[in-house]
Structures are given as C-alpha cells and as structure tokens.
C-alpha cells in the first residue's frame, strides 16, 4: 500500500526569502550526526519550487550513502510510525520543510565516517528538476 499524501505546503511564491525563481532550490540542509552503532541517518532540508509548475520529488542519491528513501514520521493514536512516502509534492512556487519528527531523507549505509562538521553531497530529483546540495553533519540544527 502506497500512501501518497500531499505535504504541507506553504505557498511562498516569489517571496523575498531566497527562493530562486525559475528552478528548484535547497536550503538549510543538514544531517543529524549518527550516534555510535546507528546504521541509518536522517537528512533535513527545505525544498523550494521556484518554477511555475508543480513538481513531484521521488528520488535522492549520494555517493556517501548506500541508499536514500523519502520518509515521514507521524504520531497516530499514541504510536510513532515511519511512513515510506517516497514522494514529496511541491506545488508551483511552494516549499516543503523536511525537519525532525516529520518528513526526512532516510540515509542508509553511510559509505565513510561522517562526524560532526563534515559535509555530504546529495542530489534530489523532483520531476524534470534536480538539485545538488551539501548537507552539514551536526548533532542539532
């Protein structure tokens, strides 16, 4: 069963807060430093759709990770659940905030040690657009 839930989308068309018009952009990208023994990490970023049409983000890749999935944590009926949404809908001029306790990039099998302060480069694909950005590894934002 695949749940395609349209995600929280603040319409910030043409706003002054750095949305680059005409293309997809990524901001405030970071990855939570993994506690010892953790085999997966979580990445957070704000994606802005500066294009005039809706975009569907459904893939991410990086040489630093074995696999990347788009996940969402929800708390329903007192249960923490992780949903494999695999899709983020970005309306024209809108944004999606990936943040702790909600939407996140699940980063499997780090390919090298990623201590606090290091950077990992990820490419996120949203339909015809892709954005490549560096994520800073840190314990907290």
């Amino acid at each position: 069963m695949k749940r395609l839930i349209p995600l929280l989308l603040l319409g910030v068309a043409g706003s002054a807060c750095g949305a680059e018009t005409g293309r997809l952009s990524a901001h405030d990208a970071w990855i939570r430093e993994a506690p010892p023994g953790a085999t997966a990490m979580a990445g957070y970023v704000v994606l802005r759709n500066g294009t005039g049409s809706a975009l569907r983000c459904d893939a991410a890749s990086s040489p630093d990770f074995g696999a990347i999935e788009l996940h969402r944590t929800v708390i329903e009926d007192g249960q923490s659940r992780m949903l494999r949404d695999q899709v983020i809908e970005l309306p024209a001029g809108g944004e999606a905030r990936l943040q702790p306790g909600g939407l996140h990039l699940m980063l499997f099998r780090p390919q090298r040690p990623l201590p606090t302060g290091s950077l990992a480069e990820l490419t996120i694909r949203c339909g015809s657009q892709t954005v490549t950005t560096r994520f800073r590894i840190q314990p907290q934002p």
Partner: protein
Amino acid sequence: MRPVPVPRQTVPSQPPDPVSADDSASRKILLVFAGALALILGLVAALQLGTPARIELSSGTLLKTPRPLPELRLLGDDGAAYERQRWEGHWTLVFPGFTSCPDICPTTLALLKAVDARLGERAARLQVLLFSVDPERDTPERLRDYTRYFGPRFAGITAPQPDDLKQAAQALGVAYAKVPGATPDSYTMDHSAALILVNPRGEIAGYLTPPFQVDALVADLERLLDSP
C-alpha cells in the same frame, strides 16, 4: 478537646429602631451567608488535609495509584539481567524505541539530553532508559554505545526472547509492531510514543506524552525528583 467558650450574644442597650427592620433582615442574610462560607471553607480545608499533595504534570499524567512492575526478564546494556532492584532508588524515564530509527528516536533522546542538562544536580536521581523493541538488531553492546552518546545516565534495555519482550512491553504499557522494509534488514518498528515514568520504588508512576517540550519536561521532572 475542650470546647471553646462562645461569647454570649450581647443585647443591644438601645431599643430597636423601628426604621431599621430592613437592616435586621439584611443582617440575617449576612449571617446565613457567613455560615455558608464557613461551611465551604471548612470542607475545602478538610479535603486539603485529607489528601496528600498531588503533582499535576503539564506534559503527561500521573496514575492515581502507582502500578508496581512485575518481575521482568529484561537485559541491561551491560549484558546482565535488568532486575527489580535496578529500578529502585531513582526515578526512571523509559523511552520505547530502537537504534535503527534515524529520526524520532535520536530527536527525542537529544531533547531528553537537553532536559537532563537543565535538571542540574537533580539529574543524578534520574535514569533515562531506551527500551528497545528491536532486540534482533539491538544487542546490549549496540544499545550501550548508542545511549551513552547522549549522556552518562542514558542506558538501554531490551528482551532478546520474543515472549519476554511482549511481557515487558505489556507491563510498561508499550505497543510495538514490525513493519517490513524494501530489504530484509531495512524493516522499521512502530512503537508507542509516550515516555513511561517509573518511581524509585519500581512502580509505574505515570506517562509523558508528545509533543515534548524541554521547558515543560524540566518543570515536571523537577517537581517529581523533589517529591518523597
């Protein structure tokens, strides 16, 4: 107890003024009102004295009667049994989760680390336990490395036998379920989001429920840690 002498009602020296009949009626009303007020105050005082001071939590609820934990077959992150006496003598905050959970588990533990730091000296009376519902992947060693990262008073427990895990989860009021992933090793676990408070007698004292806020948790825990 000796009865307190009641002063005799003084008789007015002057004859009642005929125009003050109204006044006397309002005095009666006043007396009835004062009597009712005294009764209410007395009842409130009796209730206050009759029940011990109850702590109200802003981030959860305390049970009216704490529930003793039964004998559980839990394993500590030192590889030794986590027996009854290890719950005693300090408060415990139990967080159900697992280490292969990159978002909500480290987010909550990082928040509890901030709470622990804010509690200052009181934090010495608080143990934070990650109760892993994923013993398949979470060995004691892995739990130890993972939890100590958040602080010296952070530790892990689990139960390698499925029946033991079920029993411990039931006793703690924790629900969990395995959810398959894309590959056999990428499964995830649904688990209760509430934190369980265990008092220094090894009894479940209450539950803390999300969304968690550092300030509210600090205020609640300060009062609990200071209570007898």
